[in-house]
């Protein structure tokens, strides 16, 4: 008798399940575990993916030939851009908005130390740490640094100096010089270190400065005086080991025209007097501008002089502080080590932001744009680093070639997947692990660019969050900076492009304009020359060379 369809199906199922054996049981167990495993080990992404889908807000109207104006999500259109640190004087009402402040207020905050929400101190002030190679780590207390600042400030004031050029590597003396100049009404000029004397001479001549603080032995004095006879005052900063030498020796033929003095003499001579208080300049008297020099990498004879007002700098510092998510902000438990020279204005801005947040900073004199990454971890464990793209690019190629084995590659692939899913992988086994690395690219310079996939790999290699910023010489701080939690790599591996630079910071607004070589063809204009405006821009508005583009997530990146 012919069996019905259902009976035939039943017979088939029976014969199928008749083949059940031990292997079937094993496979079923594996399948069950594989389905159940994520319930216990699922990690949520560090930030909601929708927040990364549109990272800046555009204006609703655009001028013909220009793009819409893009701003950070913290400062929407119609509100003013972030212009300062919101410093509240002690007697001010609790909910008043505070004033913008300047570098003097940053230093006052360093002295005050961290305070709780009720205004009472709840920790010790941050320290300034000097890392002298592999030998020594010296911690300078803020009272000691304040004493040095006052000594130097009085010295400069008594000699009537209005400008001082600072030609030092990263060191506590550089921080002291910067704050002494700002607190005592002298304009500091930050000169990049380690350049030939004729470049330095042309810089001091262009900025018309008559006073220079330089590392002892870094400049031949007679050569400098020959090229620039207008120099009247030289302060040598001698290392501990070379203090016994006679730096006061004046070259022949100069006579009494140049005053030469050594740093430790200025600082020692007032050792007994109590100079640990802030000078009593009122907040209404204007604080001097800060001049930064950037020497072009391609043509060392050319340098660009940019004068930033205090308002530019504090707007940039405030934007840096609020650009980090609240849980990841710089705080009293952090140690920041800049591996880039502090004469670069982005590194300076991040360092000032760290000081204002009461972090400690560690200064190593071997920092530079090509410094080695491991230098940061000799004798000290910094939690935040500022490194150049050159340093990180070298680190990336070293680590990539070291990862030859299959297990290492699988491990790396697993961690990269975790990043792509939006959560930072827990990486055990890295001894020197900062929590955050700042890196930056300067517009119109030939610095190495990192691609999106390189930045993602570096997050795995270093175990740290990486922030990639786009800076320019005319804008204090950064123009735009990636979100700390943005781990996405939208890279086309065949044609890697430089990584995107994130949304604009809250102290600037950006727009793209049409250039003669680049007309707008799209309905929505998203590629062109970049114009930056805002309180952090020297002179109010700056034009950046090069073609930039706004991506679909409203972030900035290089155009074609």
């Amino acid at each position, binding site marked *: 008798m012919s069996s019905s369809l259902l009976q035939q199906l039943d017979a088939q199922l029976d014969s*199928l399940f008749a083949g059940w*054996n031990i*292997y079937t049981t094993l*496979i079923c167990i594996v*399948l069950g575990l594989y389905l159940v495993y994520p319930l216990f080990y699922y990690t949520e992404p560090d930030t909601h993916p929708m927040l990364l889908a549109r990272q800046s807000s555009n204006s*609703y*109207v655009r001028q*013909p030939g220009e793009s819409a104006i893009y701003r950070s999500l913290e400062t929407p259109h119609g509100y003013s851009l972030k212009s300062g640190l919101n410093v509240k004087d002690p007697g001010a009402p609790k909910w008043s908005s505070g004033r913008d402040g300047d570098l003097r207020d940053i230093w006052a905050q360093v002295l005050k130390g961290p305070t709780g929400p009720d205004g009472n101190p709840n920790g010790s002030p941050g320290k300034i740490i000097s890392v002298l190679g592999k030998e020594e780590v010296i911690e300078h207390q803020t009272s000691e640094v304040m004493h040095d600042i006052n000594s130097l400030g009085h010295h400069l004031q008594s000699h009537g100096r209005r400008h001082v050029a600072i030609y030092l590597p990263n060191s506590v003396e550089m921080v002291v010089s910067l704050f002494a100049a700002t607190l005592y009404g002298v304009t500091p000029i930050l000169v990049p270190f380690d350049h030939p004397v004729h470049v330095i001479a042309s810089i001091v001549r262009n900025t018309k400065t008559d006073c220079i603080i330089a590392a002892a032995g870094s400049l031949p004095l007679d050569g400098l005086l020959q090229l620039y006879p207008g120099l009247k005052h030289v302060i040598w900063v001698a290392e501990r080991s070379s203090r016994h030498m006679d730096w006061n020796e004046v070259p022949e033929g100069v006579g009494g025209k140049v005053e030469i003095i050594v740093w430790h003499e200025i600082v020692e001579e007032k050792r007994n007097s109590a100079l640990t208080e802030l000078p009593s300049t009122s907040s209404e008297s204007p604080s001097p501008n800060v001049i930064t020099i950037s020497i072009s990498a391609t043509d060392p004879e050319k340098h660009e002089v940019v004068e930033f007002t205090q308002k530019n700098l504090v707007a940039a510092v405030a934007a840096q502080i609020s650009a980090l998510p609240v849980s990841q902000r710089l705080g009293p438990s952090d140690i920041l080590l800049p591996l880039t020279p502090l004469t670069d204005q982005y590194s300076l801005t991040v360092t000032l932001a760290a000081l204002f947040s009461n972090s400690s900073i560690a200064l190593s004199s071997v920092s530079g744009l090509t410094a080695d990454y491991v230098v940061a971890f000799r004798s000290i464990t910094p939690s935040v680093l500022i490194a150049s793209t050159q340093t990180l690019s070298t680190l990336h190629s070293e680590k990539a070639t070291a990862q030859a084995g299959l297990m290492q590659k699988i491990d790396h692939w697993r961690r990269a997947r975790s990043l792509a899913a939006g959560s930072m992988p827990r990486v055990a086994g890295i001894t020197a692990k900062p929590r955050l690395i700042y890196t930056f690219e300067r517009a119109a310079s030939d610095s190495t660019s990192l691609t999106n996939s390189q930045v993602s790999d570096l997050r795995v290699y270093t175990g740290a969050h990486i922030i990639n910023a786009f800076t320019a010489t005319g804008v204090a701080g950064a123009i735009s900076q990636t979100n700390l939690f943005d781990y996405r790599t939208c890279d086309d591996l065949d044609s890697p492009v430089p990584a995107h630079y994130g949304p604009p910071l809250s102290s600037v607004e950006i727009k793209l304009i049409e250039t003669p070589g680049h007309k707008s063809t799209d309905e929505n204009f998203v590629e062109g020359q970049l114009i930056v405006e805002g309180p952090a821009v020297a002179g109010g508005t700056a034009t950046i060379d090069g073609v930039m583009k706004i991506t679909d997530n409203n972030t900035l990146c290089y155009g074609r």
Partner: protein
Amino acid sequence: MASHEAGPPPPAVEAATITSPINLILLALLFVLVYFRLRPAAPQTLPKAPDPIVFRTFAPPDLKPFNGEGNMPVYLAVRGKVFDVTSGRNFYGPGGPYENFAGRDATRGLACGSFDEDMLTKDLEGPLDDLKGLGVDELQALQDWEDRFTEKYLVVGKLISVGEKQMSAA
């Protein structure tokens, strides 16, 4: 004699094999699940926002089509500024109480608080309304209206007369 007593041969024991049909089905299911989980996922995106409106210089004939008919946006002009009032279509669009203002220069009408036809400039090719004959109260009312519009609606252009537009284009 023992060989005669040998019973039927013992049934063949099928060796436990990994390639039985059910095993193959379950293995295929496992591989499919592993593939879907390990496949790289595209990042989440939001739907694209509407393109920003391009700021435009209008002359009265250019502004007239923007009166809400046929799915056009509703624009009106107050003291040379053109506002996009499409979100107030119930008021300013076709069939609304203020529909006379749509696509026109509403300055005199808002100053005097009237929606009559004679508040609008008749000759679109001629010069713009120079606001002659408006008193202090009316100018104050106009200023209040302009402030409200600036707060509530987007400025998408400016209004100049046909003569000025031809001069600037020349």
